[in-house]
């Protein structure tokens, strides 16, 4: 997807930098997730989420609207597909 590494070495180096920033991060929240998971932001958002490597990382996606495509993608990031909470939709 968005990360194109030119070689194995680059990939490793890249990963070590990512982990340095975020290996202690336990919580990540994507607010206005429909936009963050859209094509404009996904190339940046995906590496950020992937950089948070803590095994007990807890994730929350929130949005006023959510289309099927972005939601399906988000589900692959959420542990056990996450709990889906819908308010005020008929």
């Amino acid at each position, binding site marked *: 997807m968005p990360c194109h590494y030119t070689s194995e070495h680059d990939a490793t180096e890249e990963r070590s930098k990512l982990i340095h920033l*975020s290996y202690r991060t336990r919580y990540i929240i994507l607010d206005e997730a429909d936009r963050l998971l859209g094509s404009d932001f996904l190339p*940046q*958002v995906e590496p950020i989420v992937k950089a948070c490597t803590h095994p007990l990382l807890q994730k*929350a996606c*929130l949005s*006023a609207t959510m289309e099927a495509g972005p939601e399906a993608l988000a589900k692959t990031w959420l542990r*056990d597909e996450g709990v889906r909470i819908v308010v005020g*939709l008929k």
Partner: protein
Amino acid sequence: LSGPEPLPKSFKTFDDFLPTSDEFLRKNLRKHGVHHLWGVQGAVAGALLDEHKRDVMVIAPTGSGKTLSYLLPLMVRLGKPCRSAFKLFKSGDAPTAGEQGIRSIIVLPTHELALQIHNEVLKLCEGHAWRTMLLEKSTEKAIIDSTKSEEGKPALGIDILVATPERLHHLVSSNALPLHE
């Protein structure tokens, strides 16, 4: 509410999940006119504070109290500001890993929204030693420095980082970041 069983319980009141030992969150909520827990907030807090640490996908209209729905459980989960861990270290107790580094990240699509959410965070943190930062040009260096530890001195850490994708991605992938621990 849907998802794999067992589904978490929703909270009905702030008393169900805000720590009784520490009044500051409640005080700050009252000060800013928040007296009741709304439906979405009870449901989201219930899931995030569930013993199984459930991830959530929340779809709720603007104005339904989404922001507080994640901020409150986040602060309950973080427990104490990282600054208190820093103090502990100075008195000889090493902070645990969960009390250092960038402990939580809130990502928003635009700077304007990030600013708005950071203001909400500041309101909740009022009078407390929480270390929250909004990632922008002027704070970038301070944020990088907060993740660096020097010999005999742990990284200062950040409790809550509010950021837009471009800047945060730039930070996690740029050479500006030190590689040592």
